[in-house]
């Protein structure tokens, strides 16, 4: 029983991490209608920037972290200016494809600058695990989980309750209409990417703290996709719920089913959920159902 609860709690906390990456994805989607397939690369890229400041240039963390965040925000604006500004009003197909290009591009840059071998990521929080009663938790993941609730709340308020957030939502619903009402689509897309990069970097800090960082870590972005889809691509509060469902399910599969399936069930679980969601309820748990008119 203790084991079961431990597995479930681990899954719960990992799920919140997935949810945070999914949130980065959702923020970009609901403010610019761009499905960012490069999400995993964005997370690792943020991680590498922190690595560059903290380890290679040997800065203390209180200096390295703010600098990295400034850096990724600039990068987000840069991506909007360089790529997505030219594609406003283009078809969905083009927008999906360009994120594939971005994915290859970012990975190439990571490989060129930091090389293919995994590197040791700095300890953001101490690596000593926390004991709560009979349970043991990784400190980074536990604090990350607590932090993530704050982040979800802030993003919920910012995107659903402020004028600024609502203009971004309007852009997602219909860019042409939003533009004609005087909302700057360009600015909305730029903010979306900056926020997406910031969230991804926070996720990278939690995910990679004290671990090794390499370009292959981007596969976490692949797990965040099913989470975002289950949540509904527009829903902020859906993300933690979906993250928890997928995280706990995956952890329990890993604990109890992997022995019978050569350790593949836990890997397959999020994608099986994704296929089921796509077939039964494509808009996810709390997404907007969009009715198409000719």
């Amino acid at each position: 029983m203790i084991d079961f609860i431990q597995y479930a709690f681990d899954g719960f906390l990992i799920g919140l991490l997935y949810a945070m990456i999914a949130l980065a994805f959702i923020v970009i989607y609901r403010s610019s209608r761009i499905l960012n397939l490069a999400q995993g690369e964005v997370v690792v890229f943020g991680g590498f920037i922190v690595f560059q400041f903290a380890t290679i240039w040997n800065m203390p963390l209180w200096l390295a972290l703010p600098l990295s965040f400034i850096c990724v925000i600039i990068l987000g604006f840069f991506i909007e200016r360089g790529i997505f500004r030219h594609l406003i009003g283009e078809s969905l197909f083009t927008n999906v494809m360009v994120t594939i290009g971005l994915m290859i591009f970012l990975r190439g840059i990571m490989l060129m600058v930091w090389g293919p071998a995994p590197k040791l990521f700095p300890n953001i929080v101490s690596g000593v695990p926390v004991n709560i009663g009979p349970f043991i938790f990784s400190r980074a993941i536990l604090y990350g989980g607590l932090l993530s609730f704050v982040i979800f709340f802030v993003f919920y308020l910012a995107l659903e309750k402020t004028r600024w957030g609502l203009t971004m939502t309007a852009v997602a619903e219909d860019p042409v209409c939003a533009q004609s009402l005087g909302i700057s689509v360009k600015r909305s897309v730029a903010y979306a990417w900056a926020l997406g990069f910031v969230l991804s970097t926070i996720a990278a800090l939690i995910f990679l703290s004290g671990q090794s960082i390499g370009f292959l870590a981007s596969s976490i972005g692949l797990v965040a996709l099913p989470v975002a889809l289950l949540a509904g691509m527009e829903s902020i509060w859906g993300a933690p719920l979906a993250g928890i469902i997928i995280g706990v399910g995956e952890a329990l599969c890993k604990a109890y089913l992997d022995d019978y399936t050569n350790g593949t069930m836990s890997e397959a679980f999020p994608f099986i959920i994704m296929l089921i969601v796509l077939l039964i309820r494509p808009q996810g748990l709390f997404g907007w159902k969009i009715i198409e008119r000719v």
Partner: protein
Amino acid sequence: MAVLPCGVHFSAYKEAKSFLHTPYQWTSLIILFIFLLLLPFILPAKLVSMMSIMAILLVVVLGLQITTGLSGQINLGQSAFMGMGAFATASLAINFHLPFWLSIPGGGLAAALLGIIFGMPALRVKGFYLALTTMAAQVLFPLLILNLPSSWFGSSMGLGLEPAKIGSYVIQSRTGLYFLVMGGAVIMSFFAFNLTRSRTGRALVALRDNDIVAEIMGVNLFYYKTLAFAIGAMFAGIGGGLWAYYLRFVMVDQFTLWNSIWYVGMVIVGGTGSILGAIFGTFAIHGLEELLVTLGPWLSEAFPNLGGTAWFTGMNVVLGGVIILFLIFEPKGLAHRWSVIKHSFRIWPYPYL
């Protein structure tokens, strides 16, 4: 509208649908075929192997072009379909001792089946949701192969297979393999070109351009969307079968999501929706890759302070950059550029018509 060569005019639909109109075009095609036949005897061995790999990739990319470019169904699982074809081909050859001319189409059919299964959601969802289903196919495929009994698909050990045979002649030499895969590529290109001007091809284009309108006009969406996936996956499967006979060893690691993404890149650079574009894209991207691999050691000697691996990994930056630039500045790809050049030659010396 296409500018036709001087003096060509049609009096029947059949003529208007044909690709080759003038004796000059026929001659060029025949010269191309003669060149392809002589190629292994005139080019150095390394280039022949490169052409063989390109021919295999071409078949796969043609399939992706049909699913994604022609029918507008985003597919990020082409490499999984190719893998399915390769494994099915190898399994048929090993377990049932089928000759290659049966096992490769068998692999194509197996891949088509997988394509149908993962293409089915296309009826309910579209656009990027479809990208996600096919991506799920790509992630689930290796897990499926690894969990099936190892006598079927070799599990994690992979499958090694006997070389293809025609009668008593064993296709094992570089030249023989070149003819095998190039023959496959030529036949599949022929199919692909003809598909675009058939009733099916037009239905596929209709559902790409606007599927609701297509349905109203009487195109059966379920049938054609599934068909788009089936045909695309079948091409991938055939490509996989050729791959299996070319390398004579198949393993799950050869068919990754990353490969699928590269195939999408080839389609974009070549030009979405054009069969000729698939050919251009494959040759341009793979040629570029080979060029960097060849020049890599030389470049790292010339600029040693950049490190040895930088040039190989630089390929990703180049490809990613090329895809983005093409989408922004030339969304119709190389095929469009080619037709622009061709037209300007045809109407020369006038600047435009």
